C-alpha cells in the first residue's frame, strides 16, 4: 500500500538501526510526544531493537488520556439526559469517569453514538431538530480544525441544537511544562507529526532555544520513528539543539494556514486541566463568547461538576515520562482495558494499553 509499505520496509529499518547504533556513544532519554507514536514503537517492537543506551519515554500526546476526569463526568451527566444524542469518537466511550463511563450510559439506555467526524454530529442535529446533539470535542491541535468547522457551520446555518463539550489541549505548553519541571529527564523530543501538519513547527523553535533541546518533528510509521530517533541522537551527540523536520511529506514550517485561521476564529486560548498532570496555563482552547450557545457546559449547566482521581493510578507519572506502565502496581491486575483505573489503559493511543496489548507476557 502506497505511503505505508515503503515506511515499513525491513531492510531500510535495519539501515536506520545500524546508523543509530553507530552514532550512539552515551545514554540518551528521548520522549515521543504522541500516543500514536508510542503504539507504533511498541507494536512493531522498535523500542527493543534500539541500542540499550537509548531510553524512550512516552509523552502526554494522547487526547483521551489527558481529558480531565470531571469532563468525563460532565459528559456522562449530559449523555444521561433523555433529550440528548451524545456523540463521540469511539475511543472516549470506555474512559472511566469517577462513577461511570459513556458505554455504561449507553448500556443503561442513553443515546450515545460513535461518529467519525464532528460534521456527522452536525448532520444528526439537523436531522433531529427536537433533540439536543452534543459532540465530545477532545483532542490536540490535530482535531481542533474539524471541531471548529463543526461549530462554525452549525452557527452559520442556525443549527441551535448542536453543541460541543470541549477539552482541547495544546502541545507546546505541555512540553514547556515538562521541560521546566525539576524532575524532567527528557533530553530530546520526537514532536507529534500530525499536530505539526496543522500548526507547523515554528512554535517549537523558541522552546528548543530556551531549553537547549533537540526537537524533531516525526511521523508515525516505523521508518519515520527510526529516522526521527536518528536525527535526535545526531543532534544530541553533536551537542546541537533546535528543530528539525523528519516528516517533510506532511509538515511545513508554517503549517496549514486556513486550518489555523478557522481555529482562531472559533476558539480562544484558555487554561486547561490535564488529567494526571494538572493545570497548565494557556494550554487549551475554549469556545469564543460569540459561539457560547454551542458550548455544552453552559447549555447543560454542568461546569461546576468536579471529581477526584483514583489515588492508585500513576498515569500522570507515565505521561510525564517518569514511569513506565508496567512499573505501576495495578498494571494488568486491578487495571486492565476491560476495567481501567485510568485513561491510558483505554485509549488506542494510551501508553498503558500499548504495553498491555503488545508486551504483557504474564
Amino acid at each position: 500500500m502506497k505511503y505505508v509499505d515503503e515506511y515499513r520496509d525491513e531492510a531500510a529499518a535495519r539501515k536506520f538501526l545500524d546508523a543509530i547504533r553507530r552514532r550512539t556513544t552515551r545514554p540518551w532519554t528521548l520522549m515521543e510526544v504522541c500516543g500514536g507514536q508510542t503504539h507504533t514503537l511498541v507494536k512493531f517492537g522498535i523500542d527493543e531493537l534500539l541500542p540499550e543506551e537509548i531510553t524512550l519515554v512516552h509523552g502526554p500526546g494522547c487526547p483521551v488520556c489527558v481529558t480531565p476526569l470531571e469532563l468525563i463526568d460532565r459528559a456522562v451527566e449530559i449523555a444521561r439526559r433523555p433529550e440528548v444524542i451524545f456523540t463521540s469518537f469511539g475511543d472516549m466511550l470506555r474512559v472511566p469517569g469517577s462513577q461511570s463511563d459513556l458505554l455504561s450510559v449507553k448500556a443503561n439506555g442513553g443515546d450515545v453514538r460513535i461518529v467519525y467526524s464532528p460534521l456527522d454530529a452536525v448532520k444528526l442535529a439537523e436531522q433531529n431538530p427536537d433533540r439536543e446533539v452534543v459532540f465530545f470535542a477532545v483532542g490536540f491541535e490535530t482535531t481542533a480544525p474539524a471541531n471548529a468547522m463543526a461549530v462554525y457551520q452549525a452557527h452559520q446555518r442556525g443549527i441551535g441544537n448542536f453543541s460541543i463539550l470541549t477539552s482541547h489541549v495544546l502541545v507546546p505548553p505541555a512540553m514547556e511544562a515538562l521541560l521546566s519541571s525539576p524532575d524532567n529527564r527528557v533530553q530530546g523530543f520526537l514532536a507529534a507529526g500530525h499536530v505539526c501538519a496543522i500548526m507547523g513547527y515554528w512554535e517549537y523553535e523558541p522552546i528548543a532555544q530556551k531549553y537547549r533541546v533537540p526537537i524533531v518533528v516525526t511521523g508515525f510509521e516505523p521508518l519515520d520513528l527510526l529516522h526521527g530517533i536518528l536525527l535526535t541522537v545526531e543532534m544530541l551527540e553533536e551537542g546541537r539543539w533546535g528543530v528539525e523536520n523528519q516528516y517533510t511529506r506532511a509538515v511545513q514550517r508554517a503549517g496549514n494556514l486556513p486550518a489555523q485561521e478557522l481555529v482562531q476564529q472559533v476558539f480562544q486560548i484558555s487554561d486547561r486541566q490535564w488529567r494526571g498532570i494538572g493545570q497548565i496555563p494557556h494550554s487549551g482552547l475554549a469556545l469564543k463568547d460569540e459561539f457560547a450557545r454551542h458550548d455544552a457546559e453552559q447549555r447543560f449547566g454542568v461546569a461546576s461538576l468536579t471529581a477526584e482521581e483514583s489515588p492508585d493510578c500513576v498515569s500522570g507519572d507515565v505521561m510525564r515520562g517518569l514511569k513506565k506502565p508496567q512499573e505501576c502496581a495495578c498494571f494488568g491486575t486491578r487495571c486492565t482495558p476491560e476495567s481501567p483505573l485510568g485513561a491510558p489503559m483505554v485509549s488506542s493511543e494510551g501508553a498503558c494499553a500499548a504495553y498491555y496489548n503488545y508486551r504483557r507476557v504474564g
Partner: protein
Amino acid sequence: MSVEAQAAGIATATTVALPDPAAGVCPLPFDKYPTVVLAHGGGGRLGKMLVEQLFFAAYANPVLGGFHDGSVLDTGAGRIAISTDSFVISPIFFPGGDIGSLAVHGTVNDLAMCGAKPLALSAAFILEEGLAMDDLWRIAQSMRDAARGAGVDIVTGDTKVVDRGKGDGIFINTTGIGIVPPGVEISPRRARPGDVVLVSGTVATHGIAIMSVREGLEFETAVESDSAALHEMAGLLVERLGEDVHVMRDPTRGGVASALCEIAQSAQVGILLDEAKLPVLEEVRGACEILGLDPLYVANEGKMIAIVKRDAADEALDVMRAHPLGTEAAIIGEVVDGHPGKVFQRSRIGGTRVVEMLSGEQLPRIC
C-alpha cells in the same frame, strides 16, 4: 461461534476447579458487571469470561468439555457434530450477503471446523413487528440458496414475533448437525510445536464490509463480505491430509488473533505469526489504517485457519489454493515450544510483540 462452542473450546483450556453451579451463586464479579454490556458478545476476553464463568459453570458436562466450534457426540453407531449460532447483524442486507446467507454459512462452518460433513440445519426466526414481508422473503430465498450451496437442507424451524421496538427487524438462530467421519480428530488441543499455521485467504474483509455500510464509510472500491461455506475446503483438507490436520477454526468475531489465542491456550503451546505474511486486501488494509483497527482482530465469515503438521503444510496450501475460496491461502506462522499459551507476532521490521485476545469492543480512534 456458538455459546456452547465457545464454552467447549474454553473448557479444553481450563482444568481449574469451577464454581459449583448447584450452589446457585453467580460466579461473575457483579461489582464490575451488574449488567450485560456489548463487549460480552464481542468475541473477546469479556465474552470468554461470560461463557467460561457463567454458562460453563452452569452447564458443565463431559461433552461440553470436549470440543471447540461445535460439540461432538458419540452415539455408539458413529459421531455426530452439533453446533448452534444466533445472528443479530445490522444491517440485514450488506455487500456480499445478508443475515440469511450468513446464518447458514456460520453454522455450516462451525460444523466443518469440527471435521464434520454438514447434514441438516434448523432455522429459528425472531421477527419484529413491522419487518417488510419482501425483506423476509429475500432472506428466506437467500437461506435456501446458501443451504443448497452447502449441500444441507433446512429441516425444521420456528417463528416468533415481538412487539415493534423489541427487536432489530430480524434475529435468526440456526443449529446444525453433521457426521464426523471415522478417524477424524480435529481439536484445538492437538496443536503441536513444529506445526504450521495457515489461513485460507485475505482476512478482515467481512468486518470492514459491515462497518463501511453501518457507519456510512465510503471507499474507492466497495468491500464485499467474504461470507461463504467452508465445508468443501475443510472436507478436502481432512480427506487429503488425514490426521495431519490438527486444528481447524473459522476466525469470526475477534478475528484471527482471538481464535489463535484460544488455540494457544487450549493446547498450551506458543504461536508465532509473521505480520508480513498475513494476506489482507489492499482496500481493507487501507480502511483498517484509517480507522486504527488491526486486521488481526476484525471478523471473517468465509475464512478458515488450519494448523497442520509441518511435513503436510505444502500439501495443505495446495489443497486450499486449488479451491475457489482458497486462492489467496498463505502460511502465516508456526506453533512453537516457547511462551506456551501465548501468541506472538514478528513485525514487518523485525521486532516482536504479544498478540492478545480482543479486549472489549473494537472502537475507532480519534486521530
